[in-house]
């Protein structure tokens, strides 16, 4: 039998359906892989007993012919998703050993469809980070290394655990969340496929909030088809989240292989940054050429407010975060620190519980919302956001079906290499991805090639609101042309 962990989700679904193997076998194979890959630190909580129980249940259903669309498929869950009875920490000390009594809507839909939970995945603390180095559980290793180097690289962030685990064949797919690029950037760093759907497509209920108006759940998987399969189960209207949108969820998988002939692909000139590595430039042109070869039409487009997106994002996101994280006060759950009075108790709990990056963003957010600064920062950033949104609307109004950009300005970097002295250096990682969150649009990152040091690079496709299908169609064209990339196992 071939290594079950190397199958794509679609292949595993077939194998399970024709009884080539059981979910329990598939699950055990992954549990073994997880155990052997602990050095990657991708999982912060392994749930083998639960995984096997869920696998047995899936096997029983498959046997009865009563299998859901993800029956028996072992997945990893970002630790930002509340999982009933399983510790959920957002990788922050302030949540300590918090065990929710409830299950997030997104994960409960995955379990409804038969998926199996292998455990909880590492991420940047409260999803704040682009390298997974801010996690209270320590950094995650990228399964990819530079040619001829033993240095451990970051998998990107904040969904670093999800990307690393999927790339290292520890799970068949993973949930992730994306506030400014947290799905797409780690996907690009690990040669996996990650899609941030349209804001409102997936319920945020039960997902630890970072920045409510930007947060969106999505999958990371090893192929475009796998991502489509996962998103179909994750998406859908939820009355418990009033920002989730009540429109039907299409069969995303049906979009795979659909002709892209005649589609208009926008190439935004503002994404051509000064000093952009030639390799990224080349990758971008190559991607455009593949789409053209598949019958799409390329048009240069302008998104004039792009350069304001990153600074505006780093006002809006911390502002919301500063308020969202106020509930972590050490009073009702999580870390509790004593103090002489209530104020000191808050201060001690939050000083002890939050890491440096979270504190920085809470302080930025508090500052930009303060009386006297609100108009200059928060309000202005919201205006910029409206302009960014309008840039895209104008573009789509001209008949553009999707926009092609690089996913990241560089390939993965080493642990401790960036942001040590200047946090902005780290924030620049999100330069191509934040606009999509600011505009609430869907964006997919698809592996497209490697840089000179053998590290994967990704391309991003940005779509119209709720038109994830077009992204899957186009993403698969790139995937077909670029091929799939698997890291050499070193762990």
């Amino acid at each position, binding site marked *: 039998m071939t290594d079950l962990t190397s199958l794509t989700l679609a292949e595993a679904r077939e194998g399970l359906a024709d009884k080539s193997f059981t979910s329990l076998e598939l699950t055990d194979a992954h549990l073994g892989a997880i155990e052997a890959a602990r050095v990657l630190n991708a999982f912060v909580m392994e749930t083998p007993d639960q995984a096997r129980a869920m696998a047995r249940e899936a096997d029983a259903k498959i046997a009865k012919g009563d299998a859901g669309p993800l029956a028996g498929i072992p997945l990893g869950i970002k630790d930002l998703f509340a999982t009933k009875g399983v510790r959920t920490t957002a990788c922050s000390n302030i949540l300590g050993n918090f065990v929710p009594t409830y299950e997030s809507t997104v994960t409960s839909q995955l379990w409804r469809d038969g998926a199996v939970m292998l455990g909880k995945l590492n991420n940047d603390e409260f999803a704040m980070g682009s390298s997974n180095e801010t996690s209270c559980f320590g950094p995650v290793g990228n399964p990819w290394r530079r040619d001829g180097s033993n240095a451990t690289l970051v998998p990107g962030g904040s969904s670093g655990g999800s990307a690393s685990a999927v790339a290292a064949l520890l799970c068949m797919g993973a949930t992730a969340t994306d506030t400014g690029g947290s799905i797409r950037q780690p996907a690009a760093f690990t040669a996996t496929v990650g899609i941030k759907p349209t804001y409102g497509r997936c319920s945020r209920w039960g997902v630890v*909030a970072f920045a409510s108006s930007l947060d969106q759940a999505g999958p990371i998987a090893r192929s475009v088809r796998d991502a489509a399969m996962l998103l179909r189960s994750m998406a859908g209207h939820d009355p418990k989240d009033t920002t989730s949108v009540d429109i039907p969820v299409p069969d995303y998988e049906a979009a795979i292989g659909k002709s892209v002939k005649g589609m208009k692909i926008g190439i935004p000139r503002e994404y051509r940054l000064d000093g952009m590595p030639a390799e990224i430039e080349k990758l971008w042109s190559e991607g455009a050429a593949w789409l053209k070869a598949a019958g799409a039409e390329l048009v240069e487009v302008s998104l004039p407010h792009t350069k304001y997106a990153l600074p505006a994002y780093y006002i809006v996101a911390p502002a919301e975060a500063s308020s969202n994280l106020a509930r972590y006060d050490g009073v009702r759950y999580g870390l509790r620190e004593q103090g002489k009075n209530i104020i000191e108790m808050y201060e001690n709990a939050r000083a002890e519980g939050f890491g440096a990056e979270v504190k920085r963003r809470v302080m930025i957010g508090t500052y930009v919302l303060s009386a006297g600064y609100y108009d200059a920062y928060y309000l202005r950033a919201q205006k910029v956001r409206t302009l960014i949104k309008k840039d895209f609307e104008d573009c789509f109004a001209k008949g553009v079906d999707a926009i092609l950009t690089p996913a990241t300005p560089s390939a993965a970097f080493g642990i401790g290499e960036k942001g040590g002295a200047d946090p902005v250096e780290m924030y620049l990682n999100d330069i191509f991805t934040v606009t999509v969150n600011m505009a609430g649009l869907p964006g997919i990152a698809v592996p497209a090639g490697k840089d000179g040091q053998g590290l994967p690079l990704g391309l991003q496709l940005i779509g119209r609101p709720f038109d994830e299908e077009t992204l899957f169609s186009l993403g698969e064209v790139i995937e077909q042309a670029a091929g799939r990339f698997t890291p050499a196992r070193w762990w």
Partner: protein
Amino acid sequence: MSTATHKLLKGATGDWEMVIGMEIHAQVTSNSKLFSGASTAFGGEPNSHVSLVDAAMPGMLPVINEECVRQAVRTGLGLNAKINLRSVFDRKNYFYPDSPQGYQISQYKSPVVGEGEVLVELDGGRSVTVGIERLHLEQDAGKLLHDQSPSMTYVDLNRCGVALMEIVSKPDIRDAEQAKAYVTKLRAILRYLGTCDGDMEKGSLRADVNVSVRKPGGPLGTRCEIKNMNSINFIGQAIEYEARRQIEIIEDGGEIDQETRLYDPNKGETRSMRSKEEAHDYRYFPDPDLLPLEFSQQFVDELKADLPELPDQKKTRFVADFGLSAYDASVLVAERESAVFYETVLDRLANRARDGKLAANWVINELFGRLNKEGRDITDSPVTSEQLAAIVDLIGESTISGKIAKDLFEIVWHEGGDPRALVESRGMKQVTDLSAIEKVVDDIIAANPDKAAQVKDKPQSLGWFVGQVMKASGGKANPQSVNDLLKSKLGI
């Protein structure tokens, strides 16, 4: 826009005028909280009405309770206010254990209800119109219990997240009497609407009172806010005290510090709670978890069509339909329960048009008078609306006289029973049969020849004869018949 002369305070430098504005926090009558499904029932075990949302568990999201929105719109309509078809929920950020989220969801820049007005009646037929600045929806906070442990504070989150309407008045109130009358009227409107039970003892209605003083008609002074008042009488006392405190400071050459104060009813004084410098920076911003609150004009129109009759309308109707005096009508409509009682009496009357006014007199003078004397509430009146209607019917149809009716009322008050049957069984029926009273009349005239002679010159002394006859008949004789009979017998 006062149409009433208001009270001025005398200071050493002359008269001072008070300028008062109020923020009333009215708990919305609803089964569940503003953004969660937890119960709003009063008096549950601590922390028994707390949902995951109320406890601000990670990843929880608020979902607006539509009934609370309807209640706010109904209230806005009852205040003759502008209803905003689009409003926005904001977060008011502050750390305190009574607010697990670390922020209160409120409405800051765009409230659901805009400007309106309330007509406030005062003694002696005076009235004043108080402008409403806005009404917005917001979450109530939990309760801290400091008396459960010597070293710890306990938190009860049952009230946390319950919907409040904050009703902000314009600074149109000029003295304590107006302030008290304003709260009373507002509370009556809320109760008529069924949007707030108005129970101040349970904390369902609380007022923050802004007070400043100035020379009459002069520029506005610096105001102080007296927080969290939960009694109409205390509001009056606090305003009087606070205004005099401010006048004293100014007349002594001092300045008023803008600050938040608390009223201590035991000492009868206000004291500083926090100064302007200590005021929080709430860092308001639109709550990204909630979409703007939007509804159609049709939604508003439907609520408007279903609105109950409010005190002002009811008063106008009572005056027009039953000839009540404006004063009597205001007394009846002042509390929803009184109006309901009166209207039930009306419904049971045999002849409403004839006896509507008589019924009002009986409800106000006999029933309310008696209830007041015994410190009882209309809702536990021993005399039911049905019994009172029967008594009024008996008077109206001349079966009993007003005097007998008072005796009958006494019997019903103490013993209960069907008034009509009581009149029958106790022989209280009025005698209208002339032959039955003729002998009594003749006897009295015969026994008082001098008075009978005088009456021709002094017709006003006829009353004496009527009284004698009534007395002799045990009050059962019909006064009109007696009157007529006497006139013919005495030849006047």
